[in-house]
């Protein structure tokens, strides 16, 4: 709010209400919000509840709200489903997600730092160009990417997905982290310069620790994207390097799908990324307050 110039409008003063008590309007607003939240969370509920249901309960209509949970579906998902179970694909997903996230955040932080702190000819154009790689829908890039991957003999390898995901996430990382670097007062780095540190050391010892919240935010976003990406993974991998979404996708068209184990795989797919996010989020909340500078 800028000017606090206030009107002399003769509106009746609102009756002061004790904090904590709710009016009718509030109740209506909360009700609407709750319905919307329910709408958003319902698919997740479906996945989790179905994965715990016996076949009879799954197809019961109307759906059973209360049922006896069973773990058979998870057993199937882990060891039986699709012939191999989920494990190889889970492992592929972890490898591809971890490597591409680390690469995107690491490289992105360096690019962002360079763009913030060095005067680069055409730096702002470059910055814009970096984001422009995300302007077209990914499907437009599938054919050229496919040809590149095939020519380089990287079909069905982790490396292919790692390289592609890294390049896709990089632009997002650069855009977000640049804002964090810009918030660091330049004097902190000058102080380190006077103290006798080189640019690279300043980057690692001073700048990076200060943008930790940015690193965490972008790591979460990148990981979620890599974890769930389907289109490119399904084109670039067949079996050896196939990730969870590819594995899951393979069943969706088939007849007589076993919904129980299928949903159990879905639940397993949600879990690692959720844990990853929760663990990192703790550090995010703690974040750094820039108490060093007035």
């Amino acid at each position: 709010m800028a000017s606090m110039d206030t009107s002399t409008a003769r509106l009746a003063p609102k009756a002061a209400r004790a904090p904590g008590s709710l009016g009718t309007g509030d109740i209506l607003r909360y009700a609407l919000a709750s319905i919307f939240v329910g709408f958003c969370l319902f698919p997740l509920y479906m996945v989790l509840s179905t994965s715990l249901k016996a076949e009879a309960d799954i197809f019961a209509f109307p759906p059973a709200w209360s049922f006896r949970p069973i773990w058979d579906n998870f057993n199937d998902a882990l060891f039986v489903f699709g012939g191999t179970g989920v494990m190889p694909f889970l492992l592929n997903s972890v490898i591809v997600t971890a490597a591409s996230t680390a690469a995107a955040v690491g490289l992105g932080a360096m690019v962002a730092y360079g763009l913030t702190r060095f005067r680069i000819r055409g730096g702002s154009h470059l910055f814009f160009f970096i984001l422009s790689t995300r302007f077209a829908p990914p499907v437009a890039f599938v054919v050229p990417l496919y040809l590149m991957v095939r020519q380089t003999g990287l079909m069905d390898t982790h490396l292919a997905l790692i390289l592609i995901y890294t390049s896709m996430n990089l632009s997002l990382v650069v855009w977000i982290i640049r804002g964090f670097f810009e918030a660091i007062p330049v004097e902190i780095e000058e102080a380190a310069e006077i103290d006798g540190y080189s640019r690279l050391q300043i980057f690692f010892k001073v700048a990076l620790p200060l943008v930790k919240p940015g690193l965490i935010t972008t790591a979460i976003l990148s990981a979620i994207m890599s974890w769930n990406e389907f289109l490119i993974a399904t084109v670039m991998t067949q079996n050896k390097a196939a990730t969870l979404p590819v594995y899951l996708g393979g069943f969706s068209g088939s007849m007589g799908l076993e919904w129980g184990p299928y949903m159990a795989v879905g639940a397993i797919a949600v879990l690692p990324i959720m844990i990853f996010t929760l663990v990192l989020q703790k550090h995010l909340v703690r974040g750094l307050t820039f108490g060093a500078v007035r």
Partner: protein
Amino acid sequence: MAHVQIRNVSKIYADGTPAVTGLDLDIAAGEFLCVLGPSGCGKSSTLRMLAGLEEVSTGQILVDGDDVVGRPARERDIAMVFENYALYPHLDVFANIAMPLVARRRPKAEIRDRVGRIAGTMGITEHLAKRPGKLSGGQRQRVSLARAMIRRPKMFLMDEPLGHLEEYMRIELRREIRALHEAAGGTTFYITHDQEEAAAVSDRIAVMSSGELQQLGTMKELIERPANRFVAEFVGEPPISIFEELRATGTEVSIGDWRLPLPPGSRKARPASAGVRPAHFRIAGSDMPGLSAEARLVQPMGESAAVLCDTPAGDATVIVPMAAVPREGDRFRLVAAPEHVHFFAASGRAIRSGED
């Protein structure tokens, strides 16, 4: 112009931190009241409660007898000036100043006329077509003041308006603020941490610390009759010299090797510390009764100098005319008239003669 009464107002934040505790302030219609205090003393919270930007936890704020607690800012008829100017960066100076009138749907001709007039008063006519980004700090604050002054609100609230400016600009603008206050006849509530500024612009000064009002009075009263040790220490430049260790014997009290009659008020509360303002100390020969001292650091101030001394009772500062400045290492005695020695009880309250 409004008569503003703050009655037993407290502000406690959601996390339980008290910002303001039991504040009583009566601001006369047309008065210029300065609030002086260290950061975190509650002065900004008080201003924000007056503005309606912050809820009052308990207590009343009466404007011309009306309780305005719970009323939103836009209904309180106030104008505010911020330390960081808070100008609209996307609008030119003219549009910035005109905003309060535009918001009230005044006719275009009237707006042009009033903006032109206030811009003339503030000396910013040639900048009317510029964006705030093109102006210096001093010019921006002039624009911000013009925007506040374009109406005649009941109250002006100013939160460190000169905090970001350089000394010479602060002196120039504080004079203009005072002149504008007199011309507009508004009631002004002004926050600063600069005591010279407070003395220069205000009619009265309220000193606050840890959410409580410490003393309300003119600068002269704060200097000569501080209500407690906090006020004595916070107000006055160079700061008062405080002596922590006193020895009271019968009717006398000693500050180091300096013996003084006990203040008459000390029958109720024993003095725990004493203070003397640097301007009230005089240098006397070593054979005179007083506090023995050795000059440690001479800090010239122009016509005079502040001399920091080591004494048996701790550090003391004395102001000496430049012509009579001692050399560092010189020994002498410091003396002050009894009425210029302030005694404080252990609670910090001032012990005064005639207050038994």
